């Protein structure tokens, strides 16, 4: 039941992650376009740098939850690697989760206020002159933070599933 939930979460995060992953092509395209347009035609865009930088924000913040679900958030595994699945699960459930909650709460709550404030005043790009809506990029902070929470829940479910599986395996061997 719980494991199925974890599966759904991971699938959802993977879909989002894979979609934003394609932004890398957009970043390449926008920057190369800018160089050609400026270099060959003396027509720099006012939007290329900022647009590609905002794509980076979406790339990292919306892709991060998928990376977490895939175990890409690296650890110092000097001691960790040698621990039993149960020990690992205990540490992540009781220590990492507290730290995670502090971090994610700030991103979701204060990041949300930051993005919402930007949306309310209709904040536009100030430097580029093209007036792009910056709140879209800022909104990636709370959204990414919320998705990260889902990824963490799924991670914990999988950890305990592994503990259960090992225990079951252990009984079989016994």
């Amino acid at each position, binding site marked *: 039941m719980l494991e199925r939930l974890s599966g759904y979460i991971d699938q959802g995060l993977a879909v989002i*992650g894979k979609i934003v992953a394609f932004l890398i092509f957009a970043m390449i395209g926008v*920057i190369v376009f800018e160089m050609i347009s400026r270099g060959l035609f003396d027509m720099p865009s006012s939007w290329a740098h900022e647009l590609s930088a905002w794509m980076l924000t979406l790339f990292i913040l919306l892709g991060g939850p998928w990376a977490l679900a895939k175990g890409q958030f690296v*650890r110092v*595994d000097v001691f960790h690697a040698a621990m039993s699945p149960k020990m690992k699960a205990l540490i992540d459930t009781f220590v990492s989760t507290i*730290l995670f909650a502090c971090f994610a709460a*700030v991103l979701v709550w204060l990041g949300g206020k930051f993005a919402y404030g930007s949306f309310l005043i209709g904040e536009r790009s100030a430097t580029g002159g093209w007036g792009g809506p910056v709140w879209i990029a800022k909104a990636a902070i709370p959204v990414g933070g919320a998705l990260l929470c889902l990824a963490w829940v799924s991670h914990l479910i999988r950890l305990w599933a592994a503990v259960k599986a090992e225990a079951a395996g252990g009984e079989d061997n016994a």
Partner: protein
Amino acid sequence: MPDPLLVTPLLFGSMLFFLALGVPIAIALGGLSAAMIYFFWSPMALNMMPLRAFQNTSSFEYIAIPLFIFMATMLQKSRIAEDLYDTMQKFFGGLRGGLAIGTIIICTVFAAMAGISGAATISMGVLAIPAMLSRGYGKDMALGSVAAGGSLGILIPPSVTMIVYGLVANTSIGKLYAGGVLPGLLIAVLFSVYLLLRGQLQPSIAGGATMTRYSLGEKLVSLKGLVLPLGLVASVLGSILLGVASVSEAAAIGAGGAIVAAAVRRQLNWQSMQESAFETLLLSCMIFWIIIGASALSTFYTAMGASRLIEGMVLGLDLNPYVILIGMQVILLALGMVLDTVGIILITAPIFVPIIIQLGFDPVWFGILYIINMEIGFLTPPFGYNLFYLRGVAPDSVSMMDIYKSVIPFILLMLLAVAICIIFPEIILYLPNAIF
């Protein structure tokens, strides 16, 4: 205001504790920062964290990181990286440690294409580590040469770190750029000599049991493996030097060029493009989420009066200029073990540089020593960006302990380089004085 003497051990003690427990690094840094800010600074100051998250992920200078990672994954999936290492194998195959030296050389060239460090380390991690491991190189040599070679990025121009230092220190950026070249080469040579010796002493981890020598014909034929990589390097460097691209933009030439190169190599297909995009996303997220946590932590430490603490330590030192100089290096090394580069510069440069000038030392010379120290900081455990990046790209058979161990000789070599540059300042100052 809280006493930095109280906050320092608490902050870094808990950081070490959580990292050692194996909490994911980004989460340990982010969560710890949030808690410490709440209790020691103010609940309102927590707002700093989303601001930093947005700043770091929307910085155009950092866009080179995903772009170079994409270039590397594309080169690997289109087998261009394999071709390159095959060519090196044909030429240096008979030389124990030759491929590791080749890796250092590629890192040095990479350093000239990028202004930041992470891009080179992780790209070379993607390209070089599997190539070396599959050719009979031990984890130790493969990991160490990539981690250490990758750190050259900020010493060999262009360098964003030098620009930051130059502004804080009111020092010529041109001179800093020029000053970084010879020490950069010196360090590359030290690394190579070490790898050569290590290869002689421990052949088993430097190319395996059997070494093959190749005929001249085979060597010449293999040269075609250099064409695409060299073409790519030429386009990236050329676009910078000809004024077509800014340093950050040039990374897009590298990424786009890798797609073109894959097409030329007849290896371009939708699947490899897609896989490269996914891998780029996952590796970039690994890097940036650590940066988000680390910048929150160093901002917190700055706000707690870290500068005052450091100032007190330096002013408490002996009056002998060289004692003060070495004391500063020690402080930089110590901070490098626990903080990120940007934080260290903000905290220490405004204090160190005026003292250095007052003592009669050359600020450009000191700047280069400073940058080498920052490079060492990328490598020193427990907190070292390059160590974490390698953990992210290396195969699962590699443990963090392997990585920590692999960099120790290189850290010692860089300390040796610092000592050489202190004893022979001309190594740093020759080019700046000749050019400016």
